């Protein structure tokens, strides 16, 4: 079957490459297999990073009524190459009073967890680089190391702006880690597994042959997906939550004292973090690599994954081009007053849905729970008395 072959072409290619070592001991084959996975993962995501960085600039350009980069190569597609060369040949300035070791390690520490987190996401049928049973747990365990790296950068630079940025970053990343983790709980509860592969498998199939069984199409799943996406925006320090590097306020936050390729590494880490969070969102709520319509399953599964990823990344860029920045105290109060109660509501709604056998009754009652809590919270947190549009008087 040709569709099957195209779908599994990378898996087959890897198997063939490993078959070139026929008499090697098991451990050699295992190391070779892992290395192949790592090389492919880094290659794909480095390319995606280059592509997205130029696409972001082009999309932002269009949003802002101008052309993006269009000088280097066809449609400016070679711009990342030029940028990379520029970054590499720039002088690497280290402040004389910086903590040299910490200052050097911070960008590496920042990039590492993002790459590690990418390893557990299933990119297609049988295409998980490192299929771990506790994959979701691993994702968050390494993901939370990014906070440490931000603080290392802020502290090691010995700069007041860096310090302020790092303080803000720690505050908001720790606060949003909580809702980010809790909205994953309902999915884990329903599936009964922490393995990303099992979660994707649970979203297989179509109700009445048409509607995919993605979790985003349930009331609790939709709410959890939106919460996850917002928390993901914060975790990857993107607008409107780019408070830690708030350019107009604290220059570049924790990256103020970085230049050249170290700065590029931070940039890369931010994008890899964005890929990881979006990839996990696709896995958890958007059905992973499953096709949205049954007869579209002829399209290879990895293409579906990357198509969904691209849509999410576009939304990231779109939001960046549209919204102004919030203030740190607003970000924090949003986390504790709204995100956290809503995240717990998702858990309860998912439980109700599950114990009413995923049927209509469960669908409606979980929708009711989410709606009641949402409306109640909106009523409680109503700021219209303080913040509202105004009318003005005129003197003749």
């Amino acid at each position, binding site marked *: 079957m040709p569709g099957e072959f195209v779908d599994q072409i990378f898996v087959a290619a890897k198997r063939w490459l490993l078959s070139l070592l026929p008499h090697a001991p098991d451990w050699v084959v295992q190391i070779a297999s892992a290395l192949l996975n790592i090389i492919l993962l880094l290659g794909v995501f480095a390319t995606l990073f280059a592509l997205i960085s130029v696409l972001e600039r082009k999309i932002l350009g269009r949003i802002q009524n101008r052309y993006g980069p269009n000088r280097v190569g066809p449609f400016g597609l070679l711009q990342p190459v030029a940028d990379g060369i520029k970054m590499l040949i720039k002088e690497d300035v280290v402040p004389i009073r910086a903590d040299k070791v910490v200052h050097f390690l911070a960008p590496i520490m920042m990039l590492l967890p993002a790459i590690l987190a990418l390893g557990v996401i299933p990119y297609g049928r049988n295409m998980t680089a490192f299929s771990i049973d506790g994959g979701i747990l691993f994702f968050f365990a390494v993901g939370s190391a990014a906070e440490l790296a931000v603080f290392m950068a802020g502290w090691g630079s010995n700069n007041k702006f860096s310090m302020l940025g790092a303080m803000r970053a720690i505050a908001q990343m720790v606060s949003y880690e909580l809702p980010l983790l809790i909205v994953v709980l309902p999915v884990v509860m329903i599936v009964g597994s922490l393995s990303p592969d099992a979660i994707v498998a649970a979203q297989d199939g179509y109700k009445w042959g048409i509607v995919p069984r993605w979790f985003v199409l349930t009331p609790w799943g939709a709410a959890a997906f939106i919460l996850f996406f917002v928390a993901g925006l914060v975790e990857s320090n993107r607008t409107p939550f780019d408070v830690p590097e708030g*350019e107009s306020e604290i220059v570049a936050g924790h990256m103020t004292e970085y230049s050249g390729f170290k700065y590029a590494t931070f940039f890369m880490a931010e994008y890899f973090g964005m890929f990881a969070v979006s990839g996990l969102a696709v896995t958890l709520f958007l059905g992973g690599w499953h096709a949205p319509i049954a007869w579209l399953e002829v399209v290879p599964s990895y293409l579906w994954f990357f198509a969904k990823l691209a849509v999410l990344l576009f939304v990231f860029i779109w939001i960046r081009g549209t919204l*102004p920045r919030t203030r740190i105290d607003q970000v924090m109060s949003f986390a504790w007053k709204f995100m956290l109660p809503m995240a717990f509501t998702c858990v309860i709604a998912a439980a109700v849905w599950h114990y009413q056998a995923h049927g209509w009754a469960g669908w409606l009652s979980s929708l009711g729970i989410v709606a009641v809590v949402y409306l109640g919270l909106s009523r409680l947190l109503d700021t219209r008395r303080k*913040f509202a549009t105004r009318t*003005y008087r005129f003197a003749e």
Partner: protein
Amino acid sequence: MNMSSRAERSVVEGPRDGTSPVIPRDPSTALGMTTRLDGELLEVSMGPQHPSTHGVFRMNVALDGETVVKLKPVFGYLHRNHEKIGENTSYLGSMPYTDRLDYFCSLTNNWAYALSVEKLAGIEVPERAEYLRIILAELTRLQNHASLLGFLLSDMGAWGTPLMYAFREREKILDLFESLAGSRMMCDYMRFGGCRVDAGPDWIGRAKKVLDAFPRFLDEFEKLLVSNEIVIARTQHIGKLTADLAISAGITGPMLRASGVNYDLRKVDGYGFYPRFKFRVPLGDHGDTYDRLMMRVLEMRESIEILKQAFEQIPAGPVMNPKVKLRSFRPPVGEAYGRIEGPKGELGFYLISDGSSNPYRYRVRPPSFINLTILEDLCLGHTVADVMVILGSVDIVMGEVDR
């Protein structure tokens, strides 16, 4: 002006040699903030190299966490000796220098200077020239306010999107300036006794077309601005300026009117032909950043009304008083203060003549500089992020502040 920046470098009270603990002035009573137990404040020097201090402006800020407890503005990094040069140059020779004061609104600067020289020497201005001046001043106001809103939203972290749309409109107005005066920003267009050249027959038509397209941009901009929750939450109740403080500090322009004081020189002085025009003066009730923002939006709408009337009424005729000898200009002995309502506030030129070809004293009253002196009072108790938004809403151009 605070030129002794070195003496002011340490903005926190108390010795800094480490022998005794730094104890800040207790801010909890006066400013409503909590006193930190360890009494440690962070001193940050924002600027002169900073992405959003609108040029080479510097603020020494003392922070308690993120809260501003003290702020000292430091000026003078762009000082270019404007006033002394004015005393060593002929009256006409100062005209191009006035373009460089507030380089966003060179035409209103021209007008203010021309007005004070005309007062000094008692020069009449032809009717068509007065109308052209009003048209150009209101076009300047439109482009200044539009780009201010763009810059302000950029300071708020909107990544330049509003700025680019504001600049699209500004570009059209600058094209008009270019075809009239030959330069987009450094127009050097007005002369005492009129204007340098007449507007061509198609210029008014083109200006009308630009004006007709402007309300659409303004509607869109206002809708996005007013209904955006983040903008509202970032600007309302931030940087409040009471009417009393505004009056005693000499604040003028939209900033004063946002605090609810009805003071517009176009109405008060009635210079030029402004009494002939029907327009309203918008007034704010809260005096916060949002009101200052909205003042600009509403003023742009009034400017559009003025421009519409001006395009209908503008008569034919000469644009220059033929009696004025620009080259060998020697006004009689005396002094004069001419002021106009610039986009940023009251812009005045004070001239003393000793009968020679150069002014004896040449003094500028810059609205940006005087509006900026109030910055500390606006920022105290707010966060670092708010400082930038407040600074953006004051509307400064360093060329005018430092001169």
